[in-house]
C-alpha cells in the first residue's frame, strides 16, 4: 500500500544534534492520518449450524446408545461408550451433510477421528497411571507417615511373612538396589556415552558412521537379550552369583545406545555457524567443543541423561535375570542378590496373597512417582531450545563478561607497556645504528 505525500506539508525533520544528548539515529516519520479500519467482509469462525451440530450429535448418540443398551436391554453397559462413539460419528456426518458438500463431510469425519485418537491415547495413559495409584493407595493410606523408621519406604521385607499385615514390611531394600544399580550404570554410561556422541558428531569419518549405524540398531536391543548377555558373561564367568553389579552392567548395556542416540540428536542440532565462528576465532577442535558445543547443548544433554535414567529405572527384564531376589537390605552391590524396585513389584504381583499384590501396586506406584519426577525435571530443563538462555544464565554470562573486561583491559595495559618498551628500544637501536 502506498501513501501519497502531500507536497504542501513540510515533511522535513529537525535532526540537528543537541548538546548534552547522546546522538541517536532518528528515522524520518511522516505525519499521516490514521488508516480507517474497513468492516470485515468475511467473518471467520463456524456457522451457528456447525456450532450446534457437534454437541447435538454427541447428545443424540449418547441417548440412542443408552436406549439400545440399558433401557431396552439389547446390549451390556460395557458397549455404551463404543456404541456412542460410532453413532456420534454417523450423526455428525449426517448433520454436516445437510449443509455442506461431500468434501467437507470427509474433512469433518477425519478431523473427528484425529481428535478421538488424541483423546484415546491420553485417556489410556491416564487410566493406566490412575489405576496403579488407586490399587496401591491402600498401602500409603495405612502407612504411618510419622514413624520414619518402620514405614513402607524405610523398611524392608526381611521380617515380613506372607501373612503380615500391609503395614509391616516395605521396599527399602529395593529402593537401595535401584539407586545403587542406576548410579553405577550412570557412572559408566554418562562419560562413555557423551564421549561417543561427541565422536559421532564432532570427529566424524567413516568409522564414526559405522559406529552410529550399529548404535542406532542397538537401541532396539531386546532388554531380555541384554540380561541374557550379562548373565552368561559376568555371572557365569566371573561373579558366579546374581548381584547388583551384574544388574548395573545389564542396565548399562541397555542405556548406552539410547543415551548415545539422544545425545547425538541433540549435538546434531548445534548450528554449524556457531562451530565455525569458534574455529574462525582460532579455537582448536577441543576448545570449540569445550566452550561452544557443550555449553550450547547443556540443557539438551541433561534432558537426554535424565530420560535415559527414567528408562533404565523402569527396566525389569534384564534385572530379573541378573539382580537376584532378596527380602533384605543389601548395601553391597558386589556381593549377594540385590533386588530393585521393578523386580520387587514383579515379585509382589506374582505372589498369591492379596496383601502382596497390593504391595506390588504400591511399589509400581512408587516407581511411577520416581519416573514422573525425573520426567518433570527433564521437561523443565529441556524446555529451552539449544542456544537460548534463561534470564539467570544471561545474568551469569553478563557477570562473566564483566570479569573478562577487567582482564582484557589489564592485558591491554601490559601490551601497551610492552609496545612502549619495544618502541623505546627500537628508537635506541636506530639511534645506535646511525650515529649522527
Amino acid at each position, binding site marked *: 500500500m502506498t501513501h501519497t505525500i502531500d507536497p504542501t506539508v513540510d515533511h522535513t525533520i529537525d535532526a540537528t544534534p543537541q548538546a548534552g544528548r547522546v546522538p541517536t539515529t532518528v528515522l524520518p516519520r511522516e505525519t499521516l492520518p490514521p488508516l480507517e479500519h474497513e468492516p470485515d467482509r468475511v467473518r471467520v469462525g463456524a456457522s451457528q449450524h456447525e456450532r450446534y451440530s457437534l454437541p447435538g450429535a454427541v447428545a443424540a448418540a449418547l441417548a440412542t446408545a443408552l436406549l439400545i443398551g440399558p433401557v431396552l436391554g439389547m446390549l451390556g453397559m460395557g458397549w455404551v461408550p463404543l456404541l456412542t462413539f460410532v453413532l456420534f460419528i454417523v450423526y455428525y456426518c449426517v448433520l454436516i451433510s445437510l449443509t455442506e458438500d461431500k468434501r467437507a463431510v*470427509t474433512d469433518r469425519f477425519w478431523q473427528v477421528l484425529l481428535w478421538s485418537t488424541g483423546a484415546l491415547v491420553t485417556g489410556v495413559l491416564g487410566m493406566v497411571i490412575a489405576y496403579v495409584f488407586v490399587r496401591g493407595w491402600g498401602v500409603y493410606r495405612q502407612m504411618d507417615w510419622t514413624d520414619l523408621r518402620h514405614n513402607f519406604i524405610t523398611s524392608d521385607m526381611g521380617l515380613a511373612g506372607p501373612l503380615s499385615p500391609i503395614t509391616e514390611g516395605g521396599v527399602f531394600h529395593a529402593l537401595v538396589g535401584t539407586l545403587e544399580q542406576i548410579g553405577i550404570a550412570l557412572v559408566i554410561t554418562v562419560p562413555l556415552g557423551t564421549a561417543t556422541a561427541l565422536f559421532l558428531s564432532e570427529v566424524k569419518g567413516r568409522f564414526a558412521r559405522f559406529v552410529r549405524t550399529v548404535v542406532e540398531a542397538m537401541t532396539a536391543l531386546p532388554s531380555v537379550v541384554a540380561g541374557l548377555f550379562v548373565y552368561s558373561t559376568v555371572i*557365569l564367568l566371573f561373579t558366579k552369583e546374581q548381584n547388583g553389579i551384574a544388574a548395573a552392567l545389564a542396565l548399562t548395556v541397555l542405556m548406552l545406545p539410547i543415551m548415545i542416540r539422544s545425545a547425538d540428536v541433540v549435538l546434531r542440532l548445534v548450528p554449524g555457524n556457531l562451530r565455525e565462528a569458534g574455529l574462525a576465532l582460532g579455537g582448536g577442535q577441543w576448545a570449540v567443543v569445550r566452550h561452544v558445543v557443550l555449553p550450547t547443548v547443556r540443557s539438551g544433554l541433561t534432558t537426554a541423561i535424565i530420560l535415559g535414567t527414567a528408562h533404565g529405572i523402569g527396566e525389569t527384564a534384564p534385572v530379573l535375570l541378573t539382580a537376584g531376589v532378596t527380602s533384605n537390605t543389601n548395601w553391597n552391590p558386589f556381593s549377594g542378590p540385590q533386588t530393585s524396585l521393578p523386580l520387587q*513389584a514383579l515379585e509382589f504381583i506374582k505372589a498369591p496373597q492379596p496383601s502382596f499384590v497390593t504391595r506390588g501396586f504400591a511399589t509400581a506406584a512408587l516407581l511411577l512417582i520416581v519416573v514422573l519426577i525425573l520426567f518433570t525435571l527433564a521437561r523443565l530443563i529441556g524446555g529451552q531450545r539449544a542456544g537460548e538462555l534463561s534470564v539467570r544464565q544471561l545474568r551469569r554470562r553478563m557477570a562473566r563478561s564483566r570479569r573478562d573486561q577487567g582482564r582484557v583491559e589489564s592485558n591491554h595495559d601490559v601490551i601497551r607497556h610492552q609496545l612502549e618498551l619495544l618502541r623505546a628500544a627500537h628508537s635506541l637501536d636506530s639511534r645506535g645504528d646511525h650515529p649522527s
Partner: protein
Amino acid sequence: MTATVLPDYPEAGADDAVARKVPVIHAPTDQVFRHTSRAAGGIVLALMVLIGVFLTVNSVDAISSVGVGKWVTTQEWSPENNSFGIAAVLPGSIVIALVALTVAVPLSIGAALFITEVATGRLRRLMTGMVDLMAAVPSLVYGVWGLAYFQTHVVPFAEFLAKYFGWIPIFDVRGVDPSNALPNPALYTSSFFIAGIIVSLMVIPIQTSIMVESFSRAPQGEKEGAFALGATKWGMIRNVVLPFGKGGMIGAVMLGLGRALGETIAVYLIISPLFEIKFRILENGAVTIAAMIAQRYGEANDFSMSALMSAGLALFILTMFVNFTASSIISRSRSGADSEG
C-alpha cells in the same frame, strides 16, 4: 555483426595443475580429544559386537546338538530331552508384534497428525508431553495394568469377536460351545490378542514421536498452496503431509516392530505358555522368545542356558534386521540441511 565468442578452454591434459593438498594438523590437545572420543566409540562398538558374538558362540553348543534343521522346525522347548526349537516361539513373537502393530499404527498416525496438524499452542505441547510420558512409563506398569484390569474388561469383546467373526481363522477359538449360555471367559484370557494390545501401548509413543518428526518436515509452502487451491484440512493432510511423511511413517512402523518383538515383561505377565504354532489370536495360551527366556532362565543348567541363548540369538538377529532396515529408511527420509542456524 556480433558473434558470441567462446572462451578458450584448456584441452584435456594440457593443464596439469593439481589442487594443493591442504594438510590438517591438529594441536596436541585436539589430538588427545580425537583419540579419546575415538576410543570411546571403539569401546561402545566392541561391546555391541561382543553381544552378537557371545550369543552366537554360546548357542553353537545347543544348536549343533539338535541340528539346525530340527532347531528350526521343533515346536516344543524341553532342552532336558534334547528336543527344542524355535518353530513355536519365533512365530509367537511375530504374531504378538503384528497384533500390536495393527492396533498401534492407526493410533500413532492419528496421534501424530493430531499433534502436528490439528492441535495448536498449549494443546499441542500437552499432547507432545503425554506421548513422551507414555514412552517413559515402565513396561512393568503397562503389564500389571493389562493383567489386573484390562484383561477382565476386554474378554467380552474377545467373546464377541469369536462369536460373530469366528469363521475368520485368526478369530477362531477351540473348545467353545456356541449354545452354552454361560461362556467360559478363561478360554479368552492370556491370549496373543490381549498381550498384543498391551504391547501396542509401548509401541505407540515410539512410532508417534518419529511420525511427528517426519510430518512436521512437510514444507509450509506446499501446505499453504493446498489451502490456496481450496483444499480442506483433511485434503491438505492427505495430499501434502502424508506423502511427505511416507518414509518416516514406514521407518516408524519398522522401529515399532523391532520394539514389539523384544518386549518382555508385559508379555511375560499376561500370557500363559503354550508351545505350538498358532495364529488363533483370541485363544488362551501363547508364547514369545523374550517371555520364554524370562520364564526359563532360572532352571538353567549350562546346556539349557545354551538353548535359551540360541533362542535369544534368533530374536537378536530378527530385531537387528528389522531395526537396520528401519534406521536406513528413516535416515534416507531425513534431510540434515535444516540444522544450519
